[in-house]
């Protein structure tokens, strides 16, 4: 197992290398001039050029890449072109809201979706099954931002139960922390929940058709026992895979949710950096997201051994 883990970590390095080169080139090829954006609307071309030179953006691209690469080798993600703060500091400042949102969304989605999917599979063809599937289709189709505005209107403005926006760290109070996360979690969690519910239903349904399930019934095992002792573990592998793959969906959704609910997380940091052409932050955040995604999938792969004893690394 240890050898497998080390092999997987080593295999991540060339992937990271490709991400580094690709993102570095992409942001510079895309139209946009950070010096002009920094200088502001009233600046003259001469002032813009002075800023460009001051930031080192007038250097040849290979020279800029070399500077970036050597900094990266030292663990330095560089400085924001705009605020001049270290990118690592900016990421650390913003990671907590995103992590809180991602974890709460994952937990919410998994806790709701898996029982729903199991129920739908168990009662396949019934009204309950159809209701769950309609919910799944609807949940996947509803835009996150639209749902977010609807939730704000209903629960914040009309019912005055929850705050409209913002993030409060758990260090400043558990109750405000939870209250500020409820609506963003539901808005983002719904699409994830819909996806998981469908996959869970399909996976459980397939397992329930298996011979060993028929055997279990023939042996006199009661339905709950068949479901929980035999079916679920075998149905878990595709569900866990979807959780891992869906993480990318979550990252994309986090960007929108953070904008609607004004959560100061990594998603908004990325969007702002793209609009402002802050190359350093775009590069740093993309690298972090790629790394996290690779690690999440590694954890998912390792978790298969919990569900299927035949799988060994």
């Amino acid at each position: 197992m240890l050898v497998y883990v080390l092999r997987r970590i080593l295999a991540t390095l060339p992937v990271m290398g490709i991400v580094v080169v690709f993102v570095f080139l992409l942001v510079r090829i895309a139209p946009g001039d950070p010096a002009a954006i920094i200088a502001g609307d009233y600046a003259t071309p001469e002032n813009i050029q002075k800023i460009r030179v001051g930031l080192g953006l007038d250097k040849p691209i290979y020279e800029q890449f070399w500077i970036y690469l050597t900094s990266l080798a030292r663990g330095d993600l560089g400085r924001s072109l705009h605020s001049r703060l270290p990118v690592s500091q900016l990421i650390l400042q913003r990671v907590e809201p995103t992590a809180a949102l991602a974890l709460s969304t994952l937990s919410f989605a998994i806790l709701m979706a898996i029982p729903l999917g199991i129920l739908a599979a168990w009662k396949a063809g019934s009204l309950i099954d159809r209701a769950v599937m309609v919910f799944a289709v609807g949940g996947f189709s509803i835009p996150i931002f639209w749902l977010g505005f609807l939730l704000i209107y209903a629960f914040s403005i009309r019912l005055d139960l929850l705050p409209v926006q913002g993030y409060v760290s758990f260090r400043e109070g558990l109750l405000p922390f939870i209250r500020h996360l409820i609506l963003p979690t539901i808005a983002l969690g719904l699409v994830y929940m819909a996806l998981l519910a469908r996959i869970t239903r399909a996976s459980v349904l397939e397992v329930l058709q298996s011979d060993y399930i028929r055997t279990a019934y023939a042996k006199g095992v009661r339905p709950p026992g068949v479901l929980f002792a035999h079916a679920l573990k075998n149905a878990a592998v595709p569900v866990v895979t979807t959780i891992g793959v869906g993480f990318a969906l979550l990252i994309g959704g986090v960007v929108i949710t953070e904008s609607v609910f004004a959560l100061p997380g990594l998603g908004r940091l990325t969007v702002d950096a793209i609009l402002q052409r802050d190359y350093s932050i775009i590069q740093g955040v993309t690298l972090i997201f790629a790394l996290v995604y690779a690690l999440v999938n590694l954890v998912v792969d390792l978790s298969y051994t919990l569900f299927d004893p035949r799988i060994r690394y």
Partner: protein
Amino acid sequence: MSRRNRIAATGCLLAGLLLAWSGQAPAETTIRAVMTAEVKYLDPHWTTADITQQHGYMVFDTLFALDEKGQPQPQMVDTYRLSADKLTYTFTLRDGLKWHDGKPVRAVDCVASIKRWAVKDAAGQKVMARAASLEAANDKTFVLKLKEPYGLTIRALAKEYSYVPFMLPERLAVQDPSKPFEGDVIGSGPFMFAAKEWVPGAKTVYLKFKDYVPRKEPASYYAGGKVVNVDRVEFVVIPDQSTAVAALEKGEVDYLQRPQVDQWPLLRKDPNVGMYRGDIYQMQIHPNHLAPPFDNVKARQALMVMANQEEYLRAIAGDPQNWRTCYSYLGCGGWLETDAGAELLKKPDLERAKQLFAEAGYKGEKIVVMAPSDFATINAASLTTAALLRKIGVNVDLQTMDWGTLVSRRPIKDPPSKNPAGWHIFHTTSGYAALKDPWGHANISTACDKAWFGWACSPRATKDLEELGNLTPGTDAFKKGLAEYHTALMEDVPYVPLGEFFAYAAYRKDRLSNIIEAPYTLFWGMVKK
């Protein structure tokens, strides 16, 4: 203890802990404001970004400032003298001025700050181009000696918009203005920047500077006594407009600097929300004077005669109470208002526009209009221009992009026939403060190759403006000079002014009072219940 009692006791303990962790309301008065943008840059001499100038008004102070009549008044300066030959200004600072680190403000700080500011600022460049010397005489006095009289010296030092001549400590002011200064953000303004609480993109915090000594006069626009009545001001970033308005309605924030025009009807209906006119903007069509047919003045005049200001303003700001037509390059209602030479602009005529285009030699080639989709007002103007041009038979290539891309393409001088990234037309706005200051307003420069994007070229207008700066405002000679300058602009068309639309600020009127109505939000004077 029985099992039931143990459970009850545990429940009470948990409830108590939860309540204890529920967060206590702060004892300080805090104003939470959603501004037009996030504070990213902290050096107001480095960038013209409005939000950085706004940040500057919190943390820094100026030698002079404009009052509500638009007249420069001493601010950090206590007294100043102008010699009889109008060549020597002697400035003496007020008593009690301190930097936020407790050190006294000295004349050398001001000398270094003026020099740094003038490197990039157009108004400052005009002053320093005429300066023989600028030196500190002692800790409280500095002297500016000119080579020739310049009547706009004090007005330049009272400039209210980018680059505002904020005073910095000498150790910051001696640094190269092509880079942001390095070091703690220390000013002498009424608020201190709370660096430890700054989360770029999320929150910027300012704390009352307890040692600030305000002037004795009542506050008047940017001038007068800057008395701070709150402990903290937080600039909160809420990127989505609907969310920001909902937050104001719910009381989670106290102030929105610039809600978008589609939110105004909603805000006006709320009995707890007050609105005031924060700024006035002039929309402008900027043709590329180096790209045919706009290198021909007739093509530019065609744009002017094509433009129906009401049509544009309705597209930009909707309800007529949100805009006004204005046939002056220099703003309506300001000290330089004039409509001399504006006959073409006042009488839109599409047939005449078509004719002028033909006379300019237009033969049906594509005209590239850049439209920023993420800037609602400018996008509306761009779409209106494209539609009007098509009506008069122009072959329009409307290219939609984000503002960042437009800003990166704007410096390209080559026409689209030579460079695919070239352009013919873009639109932008100028704030009211800039309109009233043609000497410092980059957009209206007619200095040809040295002009702003579009490279408007009118030696006549350039000369007229230079001469106007040497005349005394209010005199007949000044009025005549102003009319001549404005007529030159109307005839040579550096850009087409499309009238003025208003920008409103919104605030919780049940909580905030005593707001000074100015383009930048002035948090001194404000009272929060």
